[in-house]
């Protein structure tokens, strides 16, 4: 496929690997965090780590939207379906996220909840239009890529005068998650991991542009290279990071210039600003409560806010005791360090959220990497 295959060429990958090897200083170690689940997936699937010299290490970050969705939020969605009798729509990835009482949305569906997978927020609006006697709630999760489509859906519902559509808004912000990795108090609890730079998200950056990362480069002296999702993009970004570290620079560079510029998608940003505002606090799975890290629906659109329409108190729920997701999301531990990895916790029966989506660190390692360790 155009703009995909040519960014996966194995021969070119070898050339890039050689270039990285030549440039990496054998006398030091390099630790780079790929923030985004899409990069985690690409790195595991194409074996990018195997092509890197031993002193260049990739650390998985918290950029998988399913992995950072806290149990309490999934519980709210389940309660909407089972107790309030709404038709709950959500993206497929949310369905298997473990919640309280050994439930998940999929299991709640088996118990009779009207829970539907949608491909797009627009499908949820259409469903509400077609079923005026049912309350339809869209369980909206994700980073800056899925937020603008939710804004469009809410504006559509307002334009159509729908009285039976609302959104359980759990949208989160990428820059806040990166800050939390660099400065949260839990760093003391988990220990900290030396990070020499970040691979910035691909598609999130198509919306927010490269400008928001300039703060990290300046404030924390960490280089950031925004990269596309194909393996060659990731390798080129690693090479650019190695070069920045060697030269003592901490700048924002953009490998993904075919889709990202400094300003991002201004139309999408304006839509998001019109419909959403900052939440003071939001709990993330594994990262605790982060201030100003998520969005809620503005009061002007309150009738489309499921948290206002239904009695939905938020209750925080602790992760399974054995689950190491918190440490894994911060890059302090690896999936294979979790005692129940691959035995009790598998993609078919996930205990923690990192095992759910193929972009989660545990699922990616289970699917593509785990046999290498035993071999």
């Amino acid at each position, binding site marked *: 496929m155009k703009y995909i295959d040519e960014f996966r060429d194995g021969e*070119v990958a*070898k050339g890039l690997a050689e270039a990285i090897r030549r440039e990496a200083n054998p006398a030091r170690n390099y630790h780079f965090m790929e923030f985004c689940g899409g990069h985690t997936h690409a790195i595991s699937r194409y074996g990018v780590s195997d092509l890197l010299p031993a002193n260049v290490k990739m650390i998985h970050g918290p950029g998988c939207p399913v992995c950072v969705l806290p149990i309490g939020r999934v519980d709210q969605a389940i309660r909407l379906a089972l107790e309030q009798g709404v038709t709950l729509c959500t*993206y497929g990835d949310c369905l298997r996220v473990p919640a309280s009482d050994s439930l998940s949305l999929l299991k709640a569906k088996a118990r009779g909840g009207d829970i539907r997978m949608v491909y*797009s927020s627009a499908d949820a609006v259409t469903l509400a239009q077609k079923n005026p006697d049912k309350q339809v709630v869209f369980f909206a999760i994700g980073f800056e890529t899925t937020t603008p489509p939710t804004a469009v859906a809410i504006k559509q519902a307002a334009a159509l005068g729908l009285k039976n559509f609302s959104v359980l808004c759990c949208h989160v912000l990428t820059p806040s998650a990166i800050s939390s990795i660099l400065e949260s108090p839990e760093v003391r609890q988990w220990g900290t991991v030396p990070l020499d730079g970040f691979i910035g998200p691909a598609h999130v950056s198509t919306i927010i542009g490269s400008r928001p990362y300039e703060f990290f480069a300046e404030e924390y002296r960490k280089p950031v290279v925004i990269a596309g999702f194909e393996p060659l993009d990731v390798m080129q970004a690693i090479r650019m990071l190695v070069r920045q570290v060697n030269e003592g620079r901490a700048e924002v560079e953009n490998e993904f210039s075919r889709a990202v510029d400094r300003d991002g998608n201004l*139309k999408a940003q304006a839509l998001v600003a019109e419909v959403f505002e900052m939440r003071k606090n939001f709990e993330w799975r594994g990262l605790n409560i982060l201030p100003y890290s998520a969005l809620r629906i503005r009061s002007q659109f309150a009738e489309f806010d499921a948290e206002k329409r239904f009695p939905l108190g938020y209750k925080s729920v602790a992760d399974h005791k054995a689950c190491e997701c918190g440490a894994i999301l911060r890059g302090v531990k690896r999936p294979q360090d979790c005692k129940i990895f691959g035995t009790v916790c598998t993609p078919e029966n996930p205990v923690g959220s990192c095992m759910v989506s193929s972009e989660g660190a545990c699922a990616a390692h289970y699917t593509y990497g785990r046999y290498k360790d035993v071999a």
Partner: protein
Amino acid sequence: MCLAIPAQVVELRDNDNALVDLAGVKKEISLALVEGVVVGDYVIVHVGYALNKLDPEEAAKTLKLFAEMGELAPGDDLTIH
């Protein structure tokens, strides 16, 4: 969940929608988030919406850079700013 793919717009439709071609599979998507898309453009599609246009010139530059990589001597400055 984050994964999005480049697809070519093959037909513009009512209500800000478009038909795109994803490796032979045709799909209707929304153009509500982008401006000035014409037939033939490549867009990045995610959860049914085009997030942005893809710039063919920048894509060609990036590919050229990859191709040159294997032949480089250390110290050549090809860093993209």
